[in-house]
């Protein structure tokens, strides 16, 4: 892991997303799919913490300085600010961070499931899998066509691909889960990789456990540091010996996990349910336990 002040080589819009390419040879050399970068916010705004981005692409070719590309989904004040960063500015970057996806030794038919910006790391993974002569199939989903990440690249990288959008504006109408059984069937899937919002990951985990398909998923949690210092980013993971679970830091022990070991109920439920609009009569919360 390296810390550098990296020049922004180029930026471009990709539908709803913004791609930033940094000159960072030392990071590019080490980066593997599933790992992420911790980017300090440019000065002058009221941002404190770093923001974290999956590594989408590296280039170490020829005589050129190695570069690294990541994808910004402008979904809050910090990511909106970073989407406005221009070429030739420089950013304070730490990376590569976290555990990467591991490649299957024996199994060959890989199904990659990406929702929204989750495709950024999975396309990188697809390349590496193909370089290892694995078969790659994909399910790529999003709310609408603007949020389907580089569909043409997806097609190029995969043997077969199923694209779905919630509003049907690209591919089939539906979610990645809808295509899962038939894709697994038709592709003869041996192993599944996924990067998606937690609710989708939970469903994929249930499916894989049902069908006994080995899988790896990349999760997101609110990070304080991304460096293993603060224990902000934990995910409940069952111990190997079956004797309970630990809250492990997704920034150093993840973000890639075996979904079979994540305690989904504990991680996702008992959080207040977030309905898009409140029901007619909001429940009055009267007692305050503990």
């Amino acid at each position, binding site marked *: *892991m390296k*810390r550098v002040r990296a020049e922004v080589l180029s930026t471009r819009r990709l539908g709803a997303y913004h791609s930033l390419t940094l000159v960072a040879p030392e990071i590019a050399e080490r980066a593997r799919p599933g790992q992420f970068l911790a980017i*300090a916010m440019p000065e002058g705004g*009221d*941002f*404190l*913490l*770093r923001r974290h981005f999956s590594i989408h692409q590296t280039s170490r070719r020829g005589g050129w300085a190695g570069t690294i590309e990541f994808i910004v989904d402008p979904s809050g004040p*910090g990511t909106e600010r970073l989407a406005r960063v221009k070429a030739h500015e420089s950013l*304070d970057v*730490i990376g590569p961070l976290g555990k990467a996806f591991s490649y299957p030794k024996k199994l060959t038919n890989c199904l990659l499931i990406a929702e929204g910006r989750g495709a950024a790391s999975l396309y990188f993974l697809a390349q590496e899998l193909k370089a290892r002569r694995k078969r790659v199939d994909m399910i790529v989903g999003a709310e609408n066509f603007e949020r389907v990440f580089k569909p043409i690249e997806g097609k190029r990288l995969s043997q077969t691909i199923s694209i779905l959008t919630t509003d049907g504006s690209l591919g089939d109408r539906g979610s990645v889960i809808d295509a899962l059984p038939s894709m697994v069937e038709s592709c003869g899937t041996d192993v599944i990789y996924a990067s998606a919002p937690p609710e989708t990951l939970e469903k994929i985990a249930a499916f894989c456990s049902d069908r006994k398909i080995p899988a790896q998923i990349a999760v997101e*949690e*609110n*990070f*304080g*540091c991304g*460096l*293993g*210092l*603060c*224990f*902000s*980013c*934990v*995910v*409940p993971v069952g111990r190997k010996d079956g004797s309970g*679970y*630990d*809250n492990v830091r997704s920034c*150093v022990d993840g973000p890639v996990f075996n979904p079979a070991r994540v305690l989904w109920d504990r*991680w996702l439920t*008992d*959080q*207040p349910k*977030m309905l898009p609009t*409140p029901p007619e009569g*909001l429940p009055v919360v009267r007692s305050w336990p503990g």
Partner: protein
Amino acid sequence: MAGVKRTIGVALDGLTLTTPVAIASGCAGTGRELAGLVDLHRVGAVVSRSITLHPRKGTRTPRIAESPSGVVWETGLQNPGIESFVAEELPRLARAQIPVIVSIAGTSMEEYVRLTSLLQNVAGVAALEVYLSGPDDELDREVMGSRPDRAAEIIGAVGRMSTVPVFAKLPALSTDLVEVATAVMRAGASGLTLLGPVPALGVNASRLRPELGAVTGYLSGPAVRPLVLRGVFEVSRAMPEVPIFAVGGVTTGEDAVEMLLAGAWAVQVGTATLVDPVAPVKIAQGIHAYLREKGLASPAEIRGRLRLPTASPSGEPG
């Protein structure tokens, strides 16, 4: 001033630091992570996360969110418990050969006593920091150490048993901070860490929910600095001889100098370390640059030296 021999080391009643900048509790990982991120020999000390008698899994996520010039957080003191800490984490923290201050957190007198006894004569422990901002299960109170009598009782017990200096990290919201400070010093503390984390709540309006899984949490970062400065100032005015670590919102060398001027002997850096693990080193360099500019030889020369008006500062009758 040429020829001034300049040092930024500082001695706090039995605890000697090569720079007056330590990494605050809960922001130093498990002893494994920092070594790759910062040259630890240039950090004054490291405070461990708060360690409890038994392992704690901590609270649900999210555990951190941003607020104006600050962060709101609650980890629920996730830690492996004292035994595992002493066996595994402490040796790793101590490897860098800089002072390790172990933060201990209990919910009863008995827990503090047992924690202290398990740290007696343990190699690699330079000092204890006693976390007093958690709940008091014994007396059924929300905050262990915000009342002088109870705080003194705990610190007295820890102080009598400890084989290293004991710093009391006093809760941020006390009706009379100076009274609590005086009581714990009388009870045998070696020094103080001011302030403990500031109780806070983050709300996400569009989702109608709290920002944190634990609902309530604590506010850290630059936002709290003026509050911490006031606490340090008042306590150090009352007891200028007491070593004080100032913690809360220190991000730059100038911020640290502000704390020293208000009366701190050294500072701890939490949030800024999360953002930039080299911050504690840069802050020490900033203090050094300030001393050089002012022609001063050591941090002790600015400690508590805020220039005050000669007349009473309070409002006058009309």
